[in-house]
C-alpha cells in the first residue's frame, strides 16, 4: 500500500530580550548556576509576575511576519504540572486566547531525489495554527557528575526566559517540507531580530508530530511526538526514520500507540521515552496574577512601522535591483548580516555583481578557514568596496586584489596600506610601461604581423606578456592604451 506522512511542527523560539519575561533578571547565559534568579523566577512565596513589554513587541513582530491575526486581547493561562525545573508548579503560558492565530507562510521547497538533491522546486503555503508566549523552565542536570551522589540538579538561570511557541497546522507531507519550513522560520526570526536561531544551543527547539495514513485517506493516523531535534539535519533524519518505522509497523499489521519518542543521533533512530509519563492533565486556567493583554491599534502600528524587510522580499529585491541570479540572491539574503554587508559593499563600490562574487568566493572561504562569522570579519564593507573600486578604476588588477585579500582579512588593514607596505604599487609610469611594450612588440614580429592583418584576438596575448614581464603590477588600463598606440602606429 502507498502511504503518506502527515507532519506538524511545534517550534519554541527564545526571544532576544535583555531581561526575562516576568522579572528583571538578565537573560544572559553561561554564569554560575542560580545567579540570574530572583523571587519571581525562583517561584518564592509572594512573588508576582510583571510582563516585559518588549517581549510582547517581539511576539507581535513574529506574529505579523507569519501572517497571523494578532488578537486584540490575549489571556495568559497557567499550565499546571509538577517537575523540579518548574519553580512554581505551573508554567505561565497562553491557552484559550493566544497572542496570534491563523497565519500562513509561503516557503520555497521541493522534493528530495534519490541522490539527495532537490528537484521539483516550488513555493508552497503552510498554515500556522497559533503563536503564543510563555516562560521557559529551568535546567536539569542528570549526569551525576556534580557530586556523584546520583541526584539530579536544578539551575533556574533559564527559568522565565521568554519563549514564543509557534504551532503549525499538520501541513507537511515530507521531511523536506518540514526542513524547508523550519529553515524559513529560522531565517525569519533572525531577520526580525527576535531570536538568534541557534538550534544546537536550544534558542530554537522543535518537536515534530508525525503520523502516516494510506494515501488518499481522510482520517489521520496515530500521532507520534518526536523530540530532541536540535538541528535541521536531525529534524529531517528523525522524521524520515519515524515515517519508515510507522509504515513498517502498520504494514506488518501492528498498531501504533500515541507516545513521545526521542531522536537518538548516535543510533539514527527514535526510541520511546522510558518512563511512561503520567496522563497529563494540565488544568489550564486564566492566570489571575496577570491582567488580560490588550494589543491596541497604536501598538500594532508601532510594531508594523518597525518591521524589517523579510528574507523573501529581500531575495526578490536582490534579484530585481542588483540583477543577481537565484543562487547568489539566496546566499546573500540568507541572513540579515550577510544581506546588510552586501548592500553596504554595493553602496561603496557600485558594482553589485563584483560585490556578490567577492563575498561568495573570497570572503566565504576566508571566513570558513578562520571559523568566523561575517559579523566578526575585519574586512568591513567599506574596505571590500574600496578594493573592488580599485580594480574597477584600473588601479590594481583583479589578480593583485586577490593576493591582497588574505592579508586584509587577517590583519584588518586596508588595501592601499598593504599595497604600500609591500611595495606592490602599480606601474603606471608611461615611460616605463612604454619601454616594456616596445621590447615585447619588438620580440614578437610574427604576432604583430597577424594582429595587423586583422587577428585582433592577439591583443590579449600582448597584454598577457606585459603583465608577465611586470609581475602583474602594470596598470591594466594604461597597458591597454599604450599597447593599442604601439601596435597601431605602424
Amino acid at each position: 500500500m502507498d502511504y503518506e506522512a502527515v507532519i506538524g511542527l511545534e517550534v519554541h523560539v527564545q526571544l532576544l530580550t535583555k531581561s526575562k519575561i516576568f522579572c528583571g533578571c538578565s537573560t544572559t547565559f553561561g554564569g554560575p548556576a542560580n545567579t540570574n534568579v530572583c523571587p519571581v523566577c525562583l517561584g518564592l512565596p509572594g512573588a508576582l509576575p510583571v510582563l516585559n513589554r518588549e517581549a510582547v513587541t517581539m511576539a507581535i513582530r513574529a506574529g505579523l511576519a507569519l501572517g497571523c491575526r494578532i488578537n486584540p486581547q490575549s489571556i495568559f493561562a497557567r499550565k499546571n504540572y509538577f517537575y523540579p525545573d518548574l519553580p512554581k508548579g505551573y508554567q505561565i503560558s497562553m491557552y484559550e486566547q493566544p497572542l496570534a492565530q491563523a497565519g500562513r507562510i509561503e516557503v520555497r521547497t521541493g522534493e528530495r531525489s534519490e541522490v539527495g538533491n532537490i528537484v521539483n522546486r516550488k513555493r508552497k503555503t503552510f498554515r500556522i495554527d497559533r503563536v503564543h508566549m510563555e516562560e521557559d523552565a529551568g535546567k536539569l542536570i542528570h549526569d551525576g557528575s556534580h557530586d556523584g551522589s546520583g541526584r539530579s540538579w536544578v539551575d533556574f538561570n533559564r527559568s522565565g526566559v521568554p519563549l514564543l511557541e509557534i504551532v503549525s497546522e499538520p501541513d507537511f507531507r515530507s521531511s523536506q517540507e518540514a526542513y524547508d519550513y523550519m529553515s524559513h522560520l529560522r531565517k525569519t526570526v533572525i531577520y526580525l531580530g527576535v531570536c538568534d536561531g541557534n538550534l544546537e544551543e536550544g534558542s530554537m527547539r522543535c518537536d515534530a508530530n508525525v503520523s502516516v495514513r494510506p494515501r488518499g485517506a481522510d482520517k489521520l493516523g496515530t500521532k507520534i511526538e518526536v523530540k530532541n531535534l536540535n538541528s535541521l539535519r536531525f529534524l529531517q533524519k528523525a522524521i524520515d526514520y519515524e515515517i519508515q518505522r510507522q509504515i513498517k509497523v502498520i504494514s506488518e499489521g501492528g498498531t501504533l500507540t500515541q507516545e513521545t519518542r526521542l531522536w537518538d543521533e548516535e543510533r539514527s533512530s527514535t526510541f520511546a521515552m522510558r518512563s511512561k509519563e503520567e496522563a497529563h492533565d494540565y488544568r489550564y486556567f486564566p492566570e489571575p496574577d496577570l491582567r488580560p493583554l490588550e494589543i491596541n491599534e497604536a501598538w500594532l502600528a508601532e510594531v508594523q512601522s518597525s518591521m524589517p524587510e523579510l528574507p523573501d522580499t529581500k531575495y526578490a529585491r536582490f534579484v530585481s535591483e542588483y540583477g543577481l541570479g537565484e543562487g547568489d540572491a539566496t546566499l546573500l539574503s540568507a541572513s540579515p548580516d550577510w544581506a546588510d554587508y552586501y548592500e553596504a559593499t554595493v553602496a561603496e563600490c557600485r558594482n553589485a555583481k563584483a560585490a556578490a562574487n567577492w563575498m561568495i568566493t573570497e570572503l566565504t572561504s576566508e571566513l570558513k578557514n578562520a571559523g568566523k562569522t561575517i559579523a566578526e570579519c575585519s574586512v568591513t564593507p567599506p574596505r571590500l568596496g574600496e578594493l573592488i573600486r580599485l580594480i574597477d578604476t584600473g588601479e590594481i588588477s583583479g589578480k593583485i586584489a586577490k593576493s591582497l585579500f588574505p592579508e586584509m582579512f587577517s590583519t584588518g588593514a586596508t588595501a592601499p596600506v598593504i599595497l604600500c607596505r609591500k611595495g606592490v604599487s602599480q606601474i603606471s609610469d608611461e615611460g616605463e610601461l612604454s619601454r616594456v611594450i616596445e621590447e615585447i612588440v619588438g620580440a614578437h614580429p610574427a604576432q604583430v604581423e597577424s594582429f595587423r592583418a586583422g587577428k585582433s584576438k592577439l591583443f590579449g596575448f600582448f597584454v598577457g606578456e606585459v603583465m608577465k614581464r611586470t609581475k602583474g603590477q602594470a596598470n591594466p588600463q594604461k597597458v591597454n592604451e599604450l599597447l593599442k598606440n604601439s601596435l597601431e602606429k605602424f
Partner: protein
Amino acid sequence: MEIYELSIAELHEQIQSRRISARQACESALGRIASVENKVDAFLTVAREVALREADAVDAALAAGKPVEYLTGIPLGIKDVLCTKGLPTTCGSRILEGYYPPYDAHVIERLRHAGAVIIGKTNCDEFAMGSSTENSAYKPTRNPWNLGCVPGGSSGGSAAAVAAYECPGALGSDTGGSVRLPAAFCGVVGMKPTYGRVSRYGLVAYASSLDQIGPIARTVRDTAMILQAIAGHDRRDSTSVKVPVADYLAGLDRPLKGLRLGLPKEFFGPGLDTETKTIVESATKVLQGLGCELLTVHLPHSEYAIAAYYLIATAEASSNLARYDAVKYGLRDENVQTLNGMYMASRSKGFGAEVKRRIMLGTYALSAGYYEAYYRKAQQVRTLIKRDYEEAFKHVDVILGPTSPVPPFALGEKISDPLAMYLIDIYTVTLNLAGLPGIAVPCGFTQAGLPVGLQIIGNYFAEAMILRVAYAFEQAAKFDKPLMRLNGNR
C-alpha cells in the same frame, strides 16, 4: 494609662510631640505581649530584639530631623502570610517552618519607610484557609473577649493581638472575609480594600484574584491611618491599579446627611442569628438617625456566593500551592528516594487537613472534563454577583449588613464540619468575588458579652466613603461595651 492602651492616633501625637519615644512604645507593647500572650496566643513570632533595634533606629532618625508620619514609631503586628526579610514567614504551615524570605512584601516596605516597627508575626489559619484560626499548624489563637471562643479567621492572630492591646494595629489578608470576620469576632475594626488598591507583592498567595491585604485597628481613624500608608500602585503587582489614593483622614468626620444606605434583603434572611440580627438592625437605625436614608436592595445571587467562592478560591489555591514542592525551600521528607515520592510525602506531611481538602477540590474543579461544569460555571456566577452589586450601587451609596451570621463560637465547635465553617463567610465572600471594599466595625455585644460587627460595603475605590460612614457610626453608637476580660476557659 499604659502606653499600650493608646490608639495609633494618640500614640502618633505623643511621638510627634516627643513625649513618648518609639522605644517606649515598643517596650510597652512587648511588655503587654509578655503578660497576655500565654492566654491569647496571637503571635507566631515576637520580634523582640529586631523590633527594639528598629525602634531605636526610628528614634535616631527622628532626632536627626526626619519628619514624623502617621505610623512613625507605631508597633504593628503582621499576619504571617506577608513576607518579612529577617523574620520567619510560615503562613501558619509546617511546610514553611523556619522559612525566612529574602525580601520584604511591598506593604512591609511601605510600613518600614513610614517608620512603623514590626513587633511580630501573627497567627493565622494555614495559608489563610479558614474562619477560626484553628487551622494554624502551630496553635489556635483565643478570642480575648472569651478565651474559650475562636477569634475568627483567618487573620485571627492580628485581630486578637489588636483586641488584647498587644499592638495598636496590624495587617491581615482577606480572601473571603479573613480580615473582616476576625475583626468582628474580636470587637475591632478591619477593612478589605478594593481589589488592586493595595499591592499583593510579597503576600503569600491563597487565591490570587480574591486576596487583598487590609488593616486592623481598634478605631476607624487608626484603620484609615494604616490604609493611608499601604494603599497605592506598585509596579511589581500587575493587578494593582493606578487610581489615585484619596486622603482617608481628611473627610473622615464629614456629616452623613443625605447618604443612601442599602440593606440587602438577602443579608437579613434565614441563617442569620437572631441576636446578631437585632444588634445589626439597631446599628442601621443609628445611621438613619444621622440623616441617612435606608433603602432595601437586592443581591439575588448571594446565596450562590459560597459555592462559587469555594470553587474559584480552591482552584487558584491548588495552583498557588504547587510551588511547595520541597525543591527550593520548605519541608522535605528525607525518607523518599524518588521524585514522585518526594513530592507526595513532603506535601502530605507539610500541609494540614483543610489545605489538602482545598487543594483537592481545586484540582478537581480544574481537571479535564470538569472545568466547564465547575470552574467556569463559578466564574459565570461571579459575573452575576458582580452585576448584582453594580445594579445596587446605582441606587445607594453604601451597603450595610452583618459581617458574620453568628457571634464568635467555641473552639472546636465547627472544626470537624468544614461546610459549616465555610458558611460563616456567607456575607463577606461576595465582596471578594466582586472586588469591592468593605469594613467591619464593632456595633454591639451579645448577651454573652461577645462582639458583633457591622459590615459596610462600598463601591469600587470608595474606601474614603466607607471609612467615613464607619467613623460616624463609631462616634454615634453608644452601645454598652463590656470590659475585655481575657478570661473564660482556655
